């Protein structure tokens, strides 16, 4: 274990619709929680990595500003971005910095204040989330791209809108238990099925909500981890992959090839198989995204993801509990903070500190964090 990398501190702000503070104050909330969790002071940290999707920031080059506010001068800081998967890309970067011996302890801070810009500005940026030469000119949205994947999954495998609704029912059940989630109401099938289409076949309740929020993960070398009083959670496997920005460059729409490749790498590095995973957090920005994740991660054979949710195998008491913190569907999705929030949940599970959503005896956990519609994919396997 001498050359291994551990997570020794995790923190997250509440995810809310409109945060009443600045981005530096928002970032501080997660940072304070993670540092108190790790029992560290600022002099213990060698560097910070700041993760956000900059199109939502009014502040230019926020990393320097956030590092100053966190008291992390003169340590180096820099920004990492891969839209919705920014903070797990930051985690991978921190892992490499520690593994190389350059640093002993690094803070990965993810934040997004999506309400920083007006709704009109947000709508304008939404259209430019696609290839601006060849796809944005037709009026594209994130829901539309995931909807085309849902349609392809339905056509290829016979999955239904009811199957997707079952995923939201699960998310709502666990979201009620998560004090940091933006959406904490119960949702029944009828209400989900009756909600309006956003982009067919995806309806309002198939989509996660925008939110403001922050997350912070403290990574450390094995030697540094020994000085901390918390139980270290080890990073056992890391996988990252990309797929074409243009949707026309994909071979299939019934899954995300980048996620499949990232999972393959992570399992290989950890010398593990899908059945070795005790608990998982997957990127459910839309219900169809969670369903595809079941298959891309190998929890179900291609085309059989719907059976997992129909048989409640991804509930707390099921074969492979997924998103038992409510997922993005309940927590909300503050772009740059999302991956760190997923990692925090798994770390709590592996420490046995997950309270009402604790998976009994969980020893190995997985995070699946996707940027764009599978443009970027990160899979992380952790163990206690």
């Amino acid at each position, binding site marked *: 274990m001498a050359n291994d990398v551990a997570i020794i501190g995790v923190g997250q702000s509440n995810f809310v619709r409109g945060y009443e503070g600045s981005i530096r104050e928002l970032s501080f909330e997660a940072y304070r929680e993670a540092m108190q969790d790790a029992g560290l002071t600022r002099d213990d940290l060698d560097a910070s990595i700041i993760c956000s999707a900059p199109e939502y920031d009014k502040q230019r080059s926020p990393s320097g500003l956030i590092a100053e506010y966190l008291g992390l001068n003169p340590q180096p800081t820099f920004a990492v971005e891969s839209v919705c998967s920014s903070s797990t890309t930051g985690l991978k970067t921190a892992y490499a910095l520690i593994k190389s011996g350059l640093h002993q302890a690094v803070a990965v801070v993810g934040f997004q204040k999506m309400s920083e810009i007006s709704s009109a500005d947000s709508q304008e940026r939404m259209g430019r989330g696609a290839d601006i030469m*060849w796809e944005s000119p037709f009026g594209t*949205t994130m829901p539309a791209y995931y909807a085309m994947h849902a349609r392809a999954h339905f056509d290829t495998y016979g999955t239904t809108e009811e199957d997707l609704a079952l995923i939201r029912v699960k998310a709502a059940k666990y979201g009620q238990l998560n004090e940091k989630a933006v959406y904490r109401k119960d949702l029944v099938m009828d209400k989900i099925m009756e909600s309006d289409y956003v*982009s067919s*076949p995806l309806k309002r309740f198939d989509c996660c909500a925008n939110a403001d929020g922050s997350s912070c993960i403290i990574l450390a070398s094995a030697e540094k981890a020994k000085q901390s009083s918390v139980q270290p959670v080890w990073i056992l496997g890391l996988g990252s992959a990309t797929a074409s920005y243009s949707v026309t460059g994909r071979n299939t729409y019934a899954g995300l090839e980048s996620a499949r490749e990232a999972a393959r790498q992570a399992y290989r590095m950890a010398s593990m198989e899908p059945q070795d995973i005790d608990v998982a957090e997957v990127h459910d920005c839309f219900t169809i995204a969670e369903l595809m994740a079941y298959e891309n991660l190998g929890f179900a054979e291609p085309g059989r993801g719907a059976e997992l949710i129909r048989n409640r195998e991804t509930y707390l008491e099921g074969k492979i509990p997924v998103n038992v913190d409510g997922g993005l569907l309940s927590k909300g999705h503050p772009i740059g903070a999302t991956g760190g929030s997923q990692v925090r949940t798994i770390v709590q599970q592996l420490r046995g500190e997950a309270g009402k959503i604790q998976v009994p005896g969980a020893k190995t956990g997985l995070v699946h964090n996707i940027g764009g519609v599978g443009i970027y994919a990160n899979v992380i396997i952790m163990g206690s």
Partner: protein
Amino acid sequence: MGFERFGRLSFTAQSKTADFVDFLEKGDLYATRCGDCGLIFFPPRADCCSCLSSAMDWVKVDPRGKLVSFTRSYFAPTGFENDVPYVLAVAEFDNIKVFGRFKEGYTEDDLSAGMEVALKPLTLPDGQISYQFEPAS
């Protein structure tokens, strides 16, 4: 210049592939083919990522294809608000895939994966040059 004329609303003015818009205006959809290694690209590219050549030729795409996937959007980004709802789709032509809108008046109930479609160039009322999918006649 020239690429600002492409689509319902263009976000790019300059591209070495702007001739695509001129071909489209004349009624044809073109892809690029690497003059050195023969790889075909759609969307068109000015540079070959396989052999690093920039000697590209334009090749005409047969406008008869098959629908791959589609969605009807009820929300739109800035600049497209007055168009909703509209159908976005991906269709396959000669081993390339094309993304665009389906002709107005069609809903998801009229469409199915695998149905034969035609890709039709069109000039929008404001003079923008675009294309859309229609059922093959």
